[in-house]
C-alpha cells in the first residue's frame, strides 16, 4: 500500500515538475495540477494509511487514533484541494490574458 502510493506520488510529482519547466503556458497549468495532486497525497499520507477507518465517530462518543484515521491531514488537504482549484482557475485566466496580450502562449510572453 505505502509503496504503491509513494511510487504514485513520485510519478505524479516528476511529471508535474517536468511540465513546469516547459515553455508553453498550458503545459505549466497541467503541470501545476499534477504537482498539486502529488503534494495533496503526500500531506494526506503523513497521517498514515488506514483502510476502513474514516474519521467519523459515534454520536456522543469520542474517537482515537487507534480506531480512526488521522483527521488533521485530511482537513488540511480539503483546504488544499479548494485552494488548488482556485489557483488553477487563476492561472488559466492569466494564461488566456497573456495569450490575448502577447499573441503567443510562451510563458514569458515572447518566443
Amino acid at each position, binding site marked *: 500500500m505505502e509503496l504503491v502510493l509513494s511510487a504514485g506520488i513520485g510519478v505524479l*510529482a516528476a*511529471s508535474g515538475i517536468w511540465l513546469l519547466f516547459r515553455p508553453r503556458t498550458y503545459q505549466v497549468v497541467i503541470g501545476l495540477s499534477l504537482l498539486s495532486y502529488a503534494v495533496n497525497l503526500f500531506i494526506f499520507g503523513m497521517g498514515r494509511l488506514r483502510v476502513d477507518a474514516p474519521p467519523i465517530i459515534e454520536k456522543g462518543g469520542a474517537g482515537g487514533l487507534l480506531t480512526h484515521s488521522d483527521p488533521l491531514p485530511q482537513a488540511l488537504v480539503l483546504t488544499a484541494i479548494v485552494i488548488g482549484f482556485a489557483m488553477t482557475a487563476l492561472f488559466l485566466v492569466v494564461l488566456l490574458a497573456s495569450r490575448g496580450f502577447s499573441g503567443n502562449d510562451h510563458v514569458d510572453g515572447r518566443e
Partner: protein
Amino acid sequence: MCFASLCFALAEPPAWTTIREERPIDIAALLLPVLVFAPLAGSIAAICLPSRQGTEAAWLSGLVAFLCLGISVFLYLQVSHRGVITWQMDWIPQYGLNLKLRMDGLSWMFSGLISAIGLLVVVYARYYMSPSDPVPRFFSLFLAFMSAMLGLVLSGNLVLMAIFWEMTSIVSFLLIGYWYQNAQARDGARMALTITATGGLCLLVGLMLIGHIVGSYDLDAVLASGDAIRNHPLYLVALILILAGALTKSAQFPFHFWLPHAMAAPTPVSAFLHSATLVKAGIFLLTRFWPVMAGTDAWFWLVGLAGLTTLLLGAYFAIFQHDLKGLLAYSTISHLGLITVLLSLGSPVAAVAAIFHTLNHATFKASLFMAAGIIDHETGTRDIRRLSGLFRYMPHTATLAMVASASMAGVPLLNGFLSKEMFFAEAIETHKVNLLDTLTPYVATLASLFSVTYSVRFIHSVFFGPPPRDLPKIPHEPVRWMRLPVEFLVLACLIVGVVPSLTIGPMLHTAVTAVLGAETPYYSLAVWHGWNLPLFMSIIALVGGVLLYVLMKPYLANSVEGPPYIRRLEGQRIFERVLVTLSWRWARLIEAKASTRRLQPQLRILAAVSLLAAAVPLLHRGFQPAEIVLRGIDPAFAFVWLIGMACAVGAAWQAKFHRLAALVLLGGAGLITCITFVWLSAPDLAVTQLLVEIVTTVLILLGLRWLPKRIEQATKPEEMTFGVRLRRLRDFLVAVACGLGLTLISYTVMTRQMPGTISSFFLERAYSEGGGTNVVNVTLVDFRGFDTFGEIAVLCIVALTVFALLLRFRPASESLEKPEQQQVQNAYDDRHPDRAKGDSVSDYLFVPAILMRWMFPVIGMLAAYLFFRGHDLPGGGFAAGIAMSIGFILQYMAGGTRWVEERLRIHPLRWMSIGLLVCSATGLGSWALGYPFLTSTSHYLHLPVIGDVPLASAILFDLGVFSLVLGATVLILIALAHQSVRAPRAHIRAPRVGGKEVS
C-alpha cells in the same frame, strides 16, 4: 498564531494596572492614555469632516490641544510630588510588550511643551491656512503628529517608543508633503522620510539591543541599569544605532540636510515640527538615555563631534540663506547642535543647560517661524533680498520678531542668553583631556558670533532700510488672532529671561531631577553672574557678530544663495546620488547579473534549490530510506495506481500538442487520486476531489478555445539540436530526482510508527465540543474555523481577480472565428432553407440538454443533502457549494448563456458577499457573547419525519462557506463562458473606437 494571540488578547478583559496598588482608581494615571489617544481620536474625527469645514476642524484641534494642555498642567503637581506616574495595559506580554505610559519630570516638560506650542500653532494655523486648501486634512495630520509625539515622550516601553518614533516619521512626511502638488514639498517630504525612517530602523535595532542587555523593555528597568549597559560588550553597537536614530531625527551633521528642504511645508507645520517637536525628538531621546549611556569616551566623541560640527556649520550656513525660513532652518540645526554638544559633555550641569536650552529654543524659534509666516502671508515673499523696511507697515510684528531674534542671538535679559551663558560656562570647563574638549570654547564663541550675524541680518534687512518695492502684496499687520500666539511666546521669552528662577525654575528643576536623580548638581538661574569669562565670550560674540554683518552686508545683498566655496558641497546632491546609485544602478546591475525575467530558469532554480534544501539535511543526518517490502501489496490498488501513473506520464507527454488528451489524462490522474482517498478512509476528500475535478475540467475546456493551434510537425530526431536535447535531459533529471526524493521520503514516513500528534485532540473533542461526528468537517468549521475563514477569503479574491482579468480580456485575433465544428454545422444550416442557423448545434445536444435541464433540481437536492449531513457524515459546505455550481454550469452547457440568464437569477457577486458576511457575522456573534472569535455551540433539532438535524452555530458558518464557494465557482465559470459571447462583439466594436484595431 499571531492572529490567534491577537484575538485572544482582544477577547480578554483589559488588565488595568497602576503602579499604586493601594489606590484602586488613580486619576492621574488614567489621564496618561487620554493625553496620548485624545489627539489620535481627534485626528480621526477631523479627517471625517468635509474638506470645506476648516473652521470646525480648527475648533476641534484647538479643543483637543487645550485638553492636552489642561491635563499636562494638572499633572504637574502630581509629577512634582510623586516623581513618576505610570499606566499600563497588557498588549503582548509574552514578548515583553506592554502599553505602558510613564510620566516623569522630563516627559512632563516635553508634553507640556508639545501641547502648549501645539495649541498656539492651532490658533495661528486657523488664520494662516487658506480656505482653498483641504484644511481638515491639515488638522487631522497635525493632531496625529501631536499624538505620536506625546506617545513618544510618554512611552514607558522601548518597543512602544520605537513605534511612536516611526509614527512621528510617517506623519511628519505627510505634513511636510501637505501641498503635494508642489514638487519641492514632495521631494522634501521624501528626503525627510528616507533619512528619519532609516534612522528609525537603526533606533529600533538599538533599542532591541538595549532590551537584550537589560533583559527587559521596560523603561524603568532600563534607567536603573546604567552600569550594566555601559560595561556591556554590545554597548558601542547599541550606542551607534541609537545615535543614528537620534542624530538623523534632530538633523545633526552629517544628516542635517533634510531639514532645510522640509521648509516646503506650510509654516505652522515648520513652527511646530522644527521648534518644539519633531527635531526635539532626537534631543529627547539623547536626554532620556543620558543617565544610562553618557559619560563614556565613545559617547563624548561621537555626540560631541556631531554636535560641534553641526553647531558651527549650521550657524555659518544660516548667514547665507536668502529664504527667511531657510535661515531659521539652519539656525535650528545650529541650536540643536548646541544642545547636542551640551549632552555630549557628560557633566550634570551641562545636562541641565541642555534641558533648559531645549525649552528656550522651542519658545523663541516657534515665535520666529510664526513671524516669518506672517511676513510671507502679508507680503507674498520670504526672500530677504526683496524685503525691506517693513517696520513702518507692521510695527507690532516687527517688535515681536526683534525680541525673539534677540533671544536667538543671546542678548541679555532674554531666555536665550541664560542657557547660552550656561553653555559657555560648560564649554570652558575641562571634561576630558583631548583636542575636542580644548576646541569647544573657541567653536562655541565663533558659532555664537555667527548666530548674532544671522539674527541681525534677519531683523535689519527685513524691517529696516528703504520701503520695499514691487512686493506681490501691500504689506500690513496680520489679524489680531494670528499675532496672539507670537505675542504669547515672546512674552514668555522676556519673562523667563528677566526672572528665570521665579518662573521656569521649579519646572526645570522637576525635569532635571527626573534625568539626573541624585546627581542633580547645584545650578543658578540668575541673570547676573558677575564679570566672568562666559560674559566676555558673549560680548565678543555680540560685538563681533554685528561687525561681521556690517562687513558682509554688501556681499549678501547680491550673492547667490548658500555659503561661498562650499556651496556646491550639498548634502542633498550626495544623498540623491547615493539614492540613484543604490536603488537604480546597482539594483539594475544585480538584476542583470544575478537574475532573470524568464520564468523557466526561475522555476528550475526553485526546483533545484528545494531539492537541495531537502536532500542536504537528510544526507547530513544520515537518512536511511525504509526497507522496501513487496509483500502485502493489494494487487487491485497497485493496478489502480498503474493506471494513475500512466495517466500522469501521458499528460506530461501530450500537453504540448494534444491538449484535450492531456486534459483527459489529467482527469484520469485526478480520479485515481479520488479513488485513493476513498480506499484510504478519507470520504470527505474523495467527495470534494471528485467535484473539484469536474469543475476544473469544465473550466479548462472553456479555456481551450482561446489557445493557439499547435500542430505536431514531423520533427525528425536529427533536427533537434544538441542544446535542446541537453536542456531536456537536465529537466528530466531534475524532475526525476524530485519525484524519487518525494517517493523515498513519503515511503519512509508512511512506514514508520506515528509519533504523538495533536490529531487525537480533534478526534476526542469533535463531538463533545464541536457537536458533530464528522471530525474533518468539525475541524474545518469549528476548531480551525479561522483558517477556513481565511481560505474562503482567498477564494473570493481569486474569483474577483479572474472576473477583473476577463473584463479586460481581448482574445488573439486568430481565435475569434467560431470553432471549426460550429462553422461546418452553420454552413450546413445555411445550405438548407428549412433550417435556421444554429439548429444543428441544438440538435446535437437535444437529448443531453433535456437530461441536463432536468438534472438541475436533482443536483440542487444533492447539494442540500451534502450540506446538511456535513457536520456528521461526509459532505459539508465546500462540497455542497461546488456541487451546486456544477448544476448551474450544466444549464449553461445545455441551453447556452442567454437561455440560462433569461431564466435564472444568477448573482455570484452577491452570493459571495453574503457568504463572507455570514461567516464574519458568525464569528463576531461569539464575540458579542463574550467568547473568542468563531466559538461555536451545538444542538440537535428534532424534526418530524426527517429526524435529528445537527444544529450547531458552525452550520451557519458552513452556510457562509457554501454560499461563497458557490458564488466564486459560478463567477469564475461564467466569466470564462461569457467570453464566447463577448469576444465577437468586442471585436466588432474595437475597430470603430480608434479607427484601427485596439487590441
